[in-house]
């Protein structure tokens, strides 16, 4: 049950069978469809504003997942200003562990946020969090959600996925490619270990500072959550 409590390291390499490598799964996503509906609503608001006054305002979206050759053009070609920050990779490339007296290691959360998430308050209309919260080290999760709350505009949307208790610690990490406005393609990503499973109450507590929270239950072992600031 250690994996339920989480570990300090986000990445623990493990061997995957060859059949699972580069595995691609197509998945209908009601949460993403709702996310896109909200984005389209924002797009029309901005388009109307542009008709009234000459403005260069653009919709700003932050993608916290792995760099995707599909997602970036998907949004960029729609005139959306897309930001990409692969948070899990930040942990893979650099250690934020510091050694305290007595040889105890702890995660330097302040240092992590100095080097990552350097955005202004209310900068984004929407944030795609995917399922990274399940793979992040425990001390980072809550501060990250607080940071996300700050970075979103009032009324801004965030889409996050959470594994259900049926997903074991060896649940593979997937990159979510956007196929269509309601369909995602899951591509096997690098080896990250699932750190914990949030139940519904945990998820509600995590997003208690947000104005609204909507759950979408899928047939697989992932719950989709759409939160609005």
């Amino acid at each position: 049950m250690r994996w339920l409590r989480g570990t300090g390291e986000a990445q623990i390499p493990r061997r995957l069978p060859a059949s699972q490598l580069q595995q691609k799964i197509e998945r209908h996503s009601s949460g993403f469809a709702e996310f896109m509906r909200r984005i389209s609503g924002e797009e029309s608001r901005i388009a109307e504003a542009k008709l009234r006054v000459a403005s260069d305002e653009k919709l700003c979206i932050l993608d916290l997942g792995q760099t995707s050759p599909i997602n970036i053009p998907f949004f960029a070609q729609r005139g959306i200003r897309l930001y990409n920050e692969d948070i899990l990779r930040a942990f893979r490339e650099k250690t934020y562990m510091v050694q305290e007296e007595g040889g105890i290691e702890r995660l330097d959360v302040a240092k992590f946020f100095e080097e990552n998430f350097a955005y202004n308050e209310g900068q984004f209309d929407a944030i795609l969090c995917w399922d990274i919260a399940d793979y992040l080290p425990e001390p980072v999760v809550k501060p990250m959600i607080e940071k996300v709350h700050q970075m979103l505009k009032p009324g801004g949307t965030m889409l996050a996925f959470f594994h259900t208790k049926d997903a074991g610690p060896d649940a593979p990490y997937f990159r979510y490619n956007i196929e269509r406005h309601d369909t995602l393609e899951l591509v096997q990503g690098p080896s990250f270990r699932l750190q914990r499973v949030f139940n519904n109450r945990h998820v509600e507590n995590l997003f208690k500072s947000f104005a609204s929270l909507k759950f979408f239950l899928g047939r697989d072992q992932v719950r989709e959550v759409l939160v609005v600031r």
Partner: protein
Amino acid sequence: MWKSRPEDKPISPNAVQPAFTPPPTTHSTVALKESPKSSDPFRADVAHIGKSVLIKGELSGSEDLYLDGEVEGSIDLCEHSLVIGPNGRIRASIAARELVLHGRVEGNVHATERVELKKSSTLMGDVSTQRIVIEDGAFFKGAIDIPKEPKNEVRKAAASAPAHVSTPAAVSLAPQGSFLEQK
């Protein structure tokens, strides 16, 4: 045993050959060969900077450049293409017509035509370009902005296009419109 076919016969150098009219597919082959010209780093007209070179300051030029070394400062190639090799380590803002990145860049990129991020590449900075190609495995941290061309320019381009060019082809030169415009 086998009948020799006329095309198998050796051609004498003095024989008069009919004018060669390439089949339609040949055109596309030639076009394909020519299209990656700008990304071919070993062309004679491409300037090279090797992997042991370190430049601090402003790097500017008016020819295509293959850069495999280190640069700190700024790179300005205006209307020319820049290929950053796998050993390239750039801490600079980049302005070029086209950027093909195999190595690492920390800085903002402004490419008037396109940016191509190869699978080994790392780009940390904001990108402004008309087209972007990202290979699986590339790492990007920053913002991507695809500015729209002013509608007047698009209309002018369509108007000045030769008569045989159909309207859809002319329109395809412009960046894709917004999600709403497509509806």
